[in-house]
């Protein structure tokens, strides 16, 4: 057997998942072929590479992060046991979800998408017709409607899902961007605000997004969100960033971790 044929079997041979017959074939080849047998030998030697240990402070950092996170959550109106009840009551059963209006709408959008793409495939590689383009834009706006509707749900999990949905679209409707900015500013759940910030960070070139994010730096009370906002401002390197950080630093009773992050970010900006 030639090397090319063996190469299809070699990775499975190395993981020990070949049938006995195939294994014998590979082994017979390895005895004759220096290159392939050397590759097999290198694979085995890879396991001899040293396992590097993280520093001893790594566990403590994790504990501190976890505590800060839980403390940040318990300050929220939705925090603590109420949140747990909600979270555990949230049923991910697909049928249950599809019975809800949001789920039904999502299912409708999904079916429409399947229809559009099947139609396109059957039609062959023709340039998209104006009808198709119109339908596609209608589909995009329907998806965005789903996002808008999910962002207004009672359950934090559903709102989080709504934010995640928004990240599947390259271009967002200004209404969805406004809804995400509203979520970033006023959502009671830290998780949802953090996810909204992640989603908005992809649209930083839009002036309304930039302004909304810079404004929330002064308003948000959660250290987790504040740190995430500082990181994003550092990433964007906006002209106004240094000035906003300066303002934040002057806030009385600023969380020490946030203050440290501001100092670090100012150092990086200079």
């Amino acid at each position, binding site marked *: 057997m030639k090397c090319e044929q063996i190469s299809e079997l070699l990775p499975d041979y190395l993981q020990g998942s070949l049938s006995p017959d195939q294994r014998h074939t590979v082994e017979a080849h390895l005895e004759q072929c220096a290159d392939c047998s050397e590759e097999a030998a290198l694979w085995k030697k890879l396991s001899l590479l040293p396992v590097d240990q993280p520093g001893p402070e790594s566990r403590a950092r994790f504990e501190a992060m976890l505590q800060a*996170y839980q403390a940040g959550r318990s300050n929220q109106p939705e925090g603590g046991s109420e949140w747990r009840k909600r979270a555990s009551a949230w049923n991910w059963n697909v049928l249950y979800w599809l019975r809800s209006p949001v789920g039904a709408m999502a299912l409708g959008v999904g079916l429409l998408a399947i229809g559009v793409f099947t139609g396109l495939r059957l039609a062959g590689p023709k340039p998209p017709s104006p009808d198709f383009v119109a339908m596609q834009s209608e589909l995009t706006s329907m998806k965005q409607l789903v996002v808008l509707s999910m962002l207004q749900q009672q359950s934090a999990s559903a709102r989080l899902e709504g934010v995640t949905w928004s990240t599947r679209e390259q271009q967002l409707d200004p209404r969805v961007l406004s809804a995400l900015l509203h979520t970033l500013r006023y959502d009671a759940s830290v998780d949802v605000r953090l996810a909204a910030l992640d989603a908005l960070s992809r649209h930083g070139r839009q002036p309304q997004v930039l302004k909304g994010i810079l404004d929330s730096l002064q308003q948000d009370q959660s250290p987790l969100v504040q740190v995430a906002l500082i990181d994003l401002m550092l990433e964007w390197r906006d002209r106004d960033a240094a000035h906003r950080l300066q303002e934040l630093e002057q806030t009385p009773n600023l969380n020490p971790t946030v203050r440290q992050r501001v100092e670090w970010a100012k150092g990086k900006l200079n």
Partner: protein
Amino acid sequence: MTLTPDEDLMLQVRDGAGETLGVLFDRYQTPLFNFYSKLTGDRALSEDLVQEVFLRILKYRQSYRPGTPFRAWIYQIARNARVDHFRKFPRQTALEPEMLPPVVPTDSAQEQQEVELLQRALGQLPEEKREILLLCRFQELKYEEIASLLGCELNTVRTRIHRALQELRKAFHQLAQGTMLRKAEAAGNIPPQGGRHEV
């Protein structure tokens, strides 16, 4: 005593038991740290990225669905965290051999030398080839899991692994030859007894 499966622990974390994440941290911090340190050669950055992975798990815990293999899920998060980091802070230096961790001395000097060469050869591979070897050899992900992680077909994973191994063999050979040449040179430069005067 059997260990609680990762998936069950993650479901507890999702349902609010944040402290259970500590068990998952203990299980995964060293493999994740090695994944990053062998990819980037940067210890401090690798530690930061491990922390970032666990923060993201907390942030996105409600998107974890029952039945999702936890190992594949956490490596998806780990890859995204790395991509996001290098998008924010583009790399200024390539992986240098001196950034690699020292090889623990073994009984055989030859084996130790080979492991050192292998480590350097791995460092010379393009990042995507190094990553696939690390994922299947160190992180022990199944090929199916790697396929879903990289968003490609199972056969593509096999081909990529084979190509990465081919390239590793070539890099290893070149380094081994270079080492032999240097040794031969060093041996040739040893002055014979009685001294030799260079003119």
